[in-house]
C-alpha cells in the first residue's frame, strides 16, 4: 500500500498510464522536430530551392525581424480586432435571430428557405458588394467575418433550442410556466452545450472571414501581409505570417476550450 492507499495493481495502472502519456508527447515533439529538421537539411543540401520553399532558419529570422521592428504588432492587432469583432457580432446577432425563430414558429416556417439559401451561398461572392457598401477598410472585413459566421450561428443555436426535451417542456407547462419562464429556466440552460459548440465553430468561421476579407481588401493585417508577401515574392514573409496566424488561432481556440471547461464544470452539462 502506498500513501494514498491504492492497491499495487492500481499503482501499476497509474504508472502505465503516465508512461503512455509521456510517450505520446515525445512522439508529437519528434514529428515536429523531424519535419523541421528534414526541411532545413534539404535546404542546406540544396535539394529544395530556398527562394520558393524557404527554410525554418529563414522563417525564424524573418519572424525575429518582424517583431524587432515592432511593425508586426499593428498587423496582429488589426487582424485580432477584425476577427474578435466579427466573432462577437455574429454570436450575438445569430443567437438573437435563433431566439426569435424559436419564439415564433410561423416566422420560422416562413424564413426557413431563406436561411437554407443564405447558408449555401459562398459569402465570399458578396465581396465586391461589401466593398462598395462599406468601403475598403476594417469595417468591410468585419462585415465579411460576420456574414460568414452568422448564418451557421443561427442554425446551430436554433437546433439547440428546438432540441429541448419535450417531456421537460410538458412538465414546465403543467407547473403553469409562461413561455418566458420555459425559455429562461429550461431552453437556455439546456442549450448551453450547443452554445459552446457554436462558439467553437464560430471562432473558426471568423478567422476565415477576416483573412478572406483581408485578401480582398486591406492595408494592414496578417492576411494583408500574406497577400503582400506573395505579390512581391517574399515567401519568407508569407511563411512567417502564416506561422503567426497559426499561433493566434490556436491561442483563441485554447481560450474557448478554457471557457468551455469553466462553464461545463459549473453547470453540469
Amino acid at each position, binding site marked *: 500500500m502506498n500513501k494514498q492507499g491504492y492497491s499495487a495493481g492500481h499503482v501499476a495502472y497509474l504508472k502505465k498510464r503516465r508512461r503512455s502519456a509521456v510517450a505520446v508527447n515525445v512522439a508529437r515533439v519528434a514529428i515536429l522536430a523531424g519535419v523541421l529538421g528534414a526541411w532545413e537539411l534539404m535546404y542546406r543540401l540544396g535539394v529544395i530551392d530556398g527562394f520558393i520553399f524557404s527554410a525554418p532558419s529563414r522563417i525564424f529570422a524573418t519572424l525575429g525581424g518582424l517583431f524587432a521592428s515592432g511593425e508586426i504588432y499593428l498587423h496582429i492587432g488589426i487582424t485580432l480586432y477584425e476577427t474578435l469583432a466579427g466573432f462577437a457580432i455574429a454570436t450575438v446577432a445569430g443567437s438573437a435571430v435563433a431566439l426569435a425563430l424559436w419564439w415564433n414558429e410561423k416566422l420560422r416556417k416562413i424564413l426557413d428557405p431563406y436561411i437554407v439559401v443564405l447558408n449555401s451561398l459562398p459569402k465570399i461572392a458578396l465581396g465586391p458588394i461589401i466593398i462598395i457598401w462599406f468601403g475598403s477598410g476594417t469595417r468591410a472585413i468585419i462585415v465579411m467575418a460576420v456574414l460568414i459566421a452568422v448564418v451557421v450561428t443561427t442554425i446551430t443555436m436554433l437546433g439547440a433550442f428546438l432540441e429541448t*426535451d419535450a417531456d421537460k417542456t410538458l412538465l414546465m407547462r403543467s*407547473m*403553469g410556466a409562461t413561455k418566458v419562464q420555459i425559455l429562461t429556466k429550461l431552453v437556455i*440552460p439546456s442549450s448551453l452545450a450547443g452554445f459552446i459548440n457554436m462558439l467553437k465553430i464560430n471562432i473558426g468561421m471568423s478567422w476565415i472571414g477576416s483573412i478572406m476579407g483581408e485578401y480582398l481588401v486591406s492595408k494592414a493585417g496578417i492576411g494583408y501581409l500574406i497577400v503582400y508577401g506573395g505579390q512581391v515574392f517574399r515567401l519568407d514573409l508569407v511563411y512567417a505570417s502564416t506561422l503567426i496566424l497559426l499561433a493566434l488561432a490556436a491561442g483563441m481556440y485554447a481560450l474557448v476550450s478554457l471557457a468551455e471547461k469553466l462553464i461545463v464544470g459549473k453547470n453540469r*452539462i
Partner: protein
Amino acid sequence: MKELLTLEGVGFVYHTPDGETVAVDGLSFTVKEGEFVSVIGPSGCGKTTLLGLMSGLLSPTEGKITFSGGEKPGYMLQRDELFPWRTIRKNVLLPLEIKKKLTKENAEYADSLFEKYGLADFKEQYPDRLSGGMRQRVALIRTLVFKPEVLLLDEPFSALDYQTRLSVCEDVYNIIRRENKTTVLVTHDISEAISVSDRILMLTPRPARVKKVYTLDFKEESPLKRRKNPRFREWFEILWRDLNE
C-alpha cells in the same frame, strides 16, 4: 366524499396533417377527494391523453371537465425529468419559482419534506449522483411542494427495474397517503394498480372509453402487504380476464 374532478362525456381528437386520431370518446368519470384511482388499458389507448385532459393541459374537444380543487394538479412522468444543472433542492423549488411563490415559508416546507422522507443529505447534490429510485422520490417531492390537491402520475415506475419499482412504489404510496392527496395513476401493470388503488378505471382500446370500474375491497394496506393478501390473486385474475376479453 366531495367530488373533486368530474368528466362528463369527454372526447378528444388529435389533428395532424396525416389525419385525425380520436383518442378519447364519450368518457364520464368522477374522482372523489382523497381516493387513489388507477387507470389501466392497452398501450396507445389514450391514457396519457386522459391525464392531459384532467390536468388542463389539453382541452376536451367534446364534453365537460369540472375541477373543484384550488391549486392545479401536480404532474409526475415516467422519467423524473430532474434538471441536471440544478441541485436536488433547486429542482424541488422549481414549481415554487415558476408560480412566484418562493417564500421563506414554502422553502421551509420543502426542507421539511426532505427531512421527512430521508432525502435531506442529498439536497445539495446534483441529480446525476442519485439512483433512479431516489430521483423518482425527488420528483414526487417536487410535485408535492406547491401543495396540489390532486396528483396525476403517468407510469411513474415503468422506467425502474423490478426490485426498485416495488420499493419506490411502496414509498410513493406511503408518502401520498401521509400527505393525504387525491391521486390518479396511469399504469399498464395490473398488479401495480391492484396494490395501490381504491378504484381501478379500465379503458377500452383506442378511442378510450370506460370499459369497467372496479372498487377494491382491501382495508388500508400498503402495496407490499396487499401483494401477499390472498385476494390479490383473485383481483389479478378478474382484471386480467376483463382486460384481454
